[in-house]
């Protein structure tokens, strides 16, 4: 989450960013691990096409991880979106 923390808090120092990331992920590592695992189908599909699909899958992948970050830091920001 370091990139997100840094984007959200540009004034933090490098070590503060890392500590903040560790704090945010405390107790959430398993959840993220399972979330990453849930992309296994896409990974296999991408591997079958020798990585040609990868670049097209990335936006979806990173958007999901971003959603996870927002959900564990400030879930209200996701709720405010009209779906």
């Amino acid at each position, binding site marked *: 989450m370091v990139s997100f923390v840094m984007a959200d808090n540009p004034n933090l120092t*490098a070590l503060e*960013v890392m500590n903040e990331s560790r704090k945010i*992920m405390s107790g959430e590592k398993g959840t993220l691990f399972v979330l990453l695992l849930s992309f296994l189908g896409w990974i296999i599909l991408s591997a079958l096409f020798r*990585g040609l699909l*990868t670049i097209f899958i990335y936006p979806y992948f990173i958007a999901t991880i971003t959603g996870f970050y927002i959900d564990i830091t400030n879930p209200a920001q996701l709720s405010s979106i*009209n779906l």
Partner: protein
Amino acid sequence: MRSRAELKRIAKDRLRDAYWPSFAVIAITFFAQTVQFLKNIYVAIARPGMFFTVQPYGPAPDIALTWENLSFLVQSAARQFDWVEFLFGIVGPVLMVGCAAYFLKLLRGQDAKVQEVFGYFHLFFRALGVSILVALICGGVFLLGFLAGYLFFWTIGLRFLGMAFAPLIAAIPAVVVSLGYSMVSFVMEKALTSNMYTLSFSWLLHGVFRHG
């Protein structure tokens, strides 16, 4: 805490109207991969027969340690040096911060623009420092785990299994540590060596994504 399905649904929904700008952000951020993608397209079109073939390494030449051979080796290494990957290792971390900022805005329903990806160059050294520190920490944990695993197999007399299984054992603590810094794993691609892929699940994931 939302479920995985809900997070994915939100992601898909936000990308519905902004897929191509998001694609552009990804293509810029992971420019090394974009170059590789274009190379793959070229290979697929220009040399389709080469696409799925495996090119085995030839036998190692018997090279004596002479000045000519050393000079040849240095020149070969320089020719094969991947400048795009090198540049990506340097600029990638700060671009990833911009990419994170773009996706944060997108997911929060704010006005996200592609140029966001270039908006964090004032954090260049900080981003680079963080990525190097994370690589060193994850690398250190992996090495400790590897040594412990190797010593374990060595002490029970199964040293030959050590090299095969010690990396797998070492990957577990490295994965746990790297998940703490999770997103950095995408930034850190090949920052130190290509073997760093083995240091975390995310690197592994990224490695599989890239190289199949």
